[in-house]
């Protein structure tokens, strides 16, 4: 894991002092709310429905025992004993007091964490594949460039006040688990077929929200050393030419859409050609310094199969399900990446209590080389677990209420906080997720349905990624009541697709029944081995739409 050097440390400490002074001036009245608001937002502090909300950056989702324990401490002392992990691999506290935020930031700095650029019109926290450095399908670990981009984008003088927020995701794997095509810029590590050299495929112009767009390839192959100078050019074109007249049209996706990807590419290449390249290029020594922090841990040489685990699985059905759904193949023989589902049936997705944070800290330290990762799916991954240890880990997780064996299944639902917490939301999301999880709780039923993603947002800003859920649910207000639109066919990965609307909005209590009807079409019509999304692609929208109509007609 990356460790702060003196520059990182100083930057974060200085920011804590600055913000402490800004809070003091706000409380004395020296700063007005209009002056203070953009400052607090640059430090991840929102004012939400019930209280302030502090969004803590977890760059590319990387956590360790020390960081988790500090988050647990802050949750207990300054919040209400829990935190919420988001689709951007961040953590949100829902109840901090403004007067306490400088103290919280100072504690975070003690464990090399901060809230810088977790909000506001700047380059946000860089996200990545949660199986980075672990995945068997990886060309190269993306964390060194994720960290490089974190450093490059932190307090970047030219891009600190963009027209609108800017989100970058990176992956080094063949399979896209970082939702690259929904980001302003996506960076994919690739190998040039001709030279065999490693470089980057750059995507631009993706995004969700009220105008969902698919990111397009801007550059097939960018040489490694040009990453920062090229992104400098991309950001510069966006900063200069992106719209500022309308906040909803100020994202790069609109610029790319309005210009067209070819014209946008030409503008970027023009800027790139003119850029002072030596000044902006990646310094190979600095890159090597960063990359050294991500050297693989000292894995043991183990057999590919664990007799110990096999014997335990044979005796324990729950463990067997957990192994089937929550373990992911590891590069290293005898190891697995273990997904801790933060979707216990009936509880708010992504929430973790301070006690559970400490339990995961213990597990990470004891069993996973002191590493844990936040996934954009609002789960936590222990990336380096010996197969021999899985049964012991599962026993602890189960005792902590974290043994749900549903990773990637229909109850592994992504949900934004919705109107239960969020000031922007138009409807609640969490209760809908809870009702759906309870409806599909039966493990046998979940297994029968197989991989199926449900994603729920409480407004069109789409923090819950509803457009790219196999089944997407969007909460809106209709005639002074909450109403839920359902889309189908969305895909966040390599076969990226935006879902299609099935019909009119439904009241919350009808949603589980509607999803049931949709799933029934799949179960009745699937061919051998087909997943939900594959059946949808083969059948098209029509049969799902007519099944949905039966429910919608009841409401109408």
């Amino acid at each position, binding site marked *: 894991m990356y460790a702060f050097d003196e520059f990182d440390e100083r930057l974060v400490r200085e920011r804590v002092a600055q913000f402490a002074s800004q809070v003091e001036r706000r409380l004395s009245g020296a700063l007005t*709310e209009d002056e203070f608001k953009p400052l607090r937002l640059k430090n991840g502090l929102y004012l939400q429905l019930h209280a302030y909300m502090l969004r803590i950056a977890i760059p590319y989702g990387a956590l360790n025992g020390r960081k988790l324990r500090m988050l647990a401490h802050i949750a207990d002392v300054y919040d209400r004993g829990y935190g919420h992990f988001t689709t951007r691999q961040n953590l949100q506290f829902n109840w901090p007091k403004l007067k306490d935020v400088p103290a919280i930031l100072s504690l975070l700095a003690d464990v090399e964490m901060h809230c810088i650029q977790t909000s506001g019109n700047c380059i946000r926290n860089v996200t990545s594949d949660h199986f980075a450095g672990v995945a068997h399908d990886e060309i190269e670990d993306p964390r060194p460039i994720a960290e490089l981009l974190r450093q490059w984008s932190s307090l970047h003088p030219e891009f600190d006040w963009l027209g609108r927020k800017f989100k970058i995701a990176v992956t080094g794997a063949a399979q896209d688990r970082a939702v690259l095509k929904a980001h302003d810029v996506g960076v994919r590590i690739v190998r040039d077929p001709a030279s065999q050299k490693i470089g980057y495929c750059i995507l631009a112009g993706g995004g969700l929200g009220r105008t969902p767009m698919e990111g397009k390839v801007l550059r097939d192959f960018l040489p490694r050393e040009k990453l920062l100078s090229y992104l400098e050019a991309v950001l510069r074109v966006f900063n200069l030419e992106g719209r500022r007249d309308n906040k909803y049209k100020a994202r790069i996706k609109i610029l790319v859409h309005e210009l067209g990807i070819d014209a946008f590419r030409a503008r970027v290449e023009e800027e790139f050609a003119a850029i002072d390249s030596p000044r902006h290029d990646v310094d190979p020594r600095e890159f090597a310094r960063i990359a050294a922090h991500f050297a693989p841990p000292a894995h043991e040489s183990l057999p590919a199969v664990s007799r110990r685990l096999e014997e335990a699985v044979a005796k324990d059905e729950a463990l067997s399900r957990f192994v089937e759904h929550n373990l992911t193949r590891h590069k290293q023989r005898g190891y697995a990446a273990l997904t801790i589902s933060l979707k216990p049936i009936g509880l708010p997705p992504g929430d973790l209590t301070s006690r559970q944070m400490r339990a995961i800290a213990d597990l990470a330290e004891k069993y996973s080389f002191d590493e844990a990762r936040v996934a954009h799916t609002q789960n936590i991954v222990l990336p380096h677990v010996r197969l021999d240890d899985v049964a012991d880990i599962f026993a602890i997780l189960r005792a902590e209420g974290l043994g749900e064996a549903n990773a990637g299944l229909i109850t592994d639902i992504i949900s934004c906080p919705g109107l*239960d917490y969020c000031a922007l939301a138009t409807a609640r999301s969490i*209760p809908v997720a809870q009702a759906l999880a309870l409806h599909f709780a039966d493990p046998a039923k979940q297994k029968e349905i197989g991989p199926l993603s449900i994603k729920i947002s409480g407004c069109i800003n789409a923090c819950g990624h509803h457009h790219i859920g196999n089944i997407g649910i969007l909460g809106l207000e209709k005639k002074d009541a909450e109403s839920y639109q359902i889309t189908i066919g969305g895909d966040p990965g390599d076969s990226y697709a935006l879902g299609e609307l099935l019909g009119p909005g439904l009241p919350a209590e009808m949603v589980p029944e509607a999803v049931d009807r949709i799933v029934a079409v799949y179960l009745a019509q699937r061919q051998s081995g087909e997943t939900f999304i594959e059946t949808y692609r083969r059948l098209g929208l029509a049969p799902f739409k007519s099944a949905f109509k039966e429910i919608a007609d009841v409401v109408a």
Partner: protein
Amino acid sequence: MAAPKRPNLPAILVASDLLEGEVVFAAEQGWTRDLRQALVASDELAAQALERFGATEFLHAKVVDPYLVAVETGADGAPRPRHYREVLRALGPSVRPDLGKQADFQI
């Protein structure tokens, strides 16, 4: 910073406490965290007075984003917001009945 559109009356004035971030309601004297103590404006004059109070308190860095919220009066005489968003805001997260005003005041 009052909401651009005046809600129907009766109404109460809702804001966020600057220091704590907590939702507060204008009361007879200053602010209250308890919805049942909120001062209800039933006519235009009273609504304007609430808005003036909110504007002054905002100016003096006591509260943020004060605005009027349409309410109805329940059988117990206590105001209850008409819109579901404001009901949630006045009570707390519906998914955590152990937190927020609903827990603090047993409402």
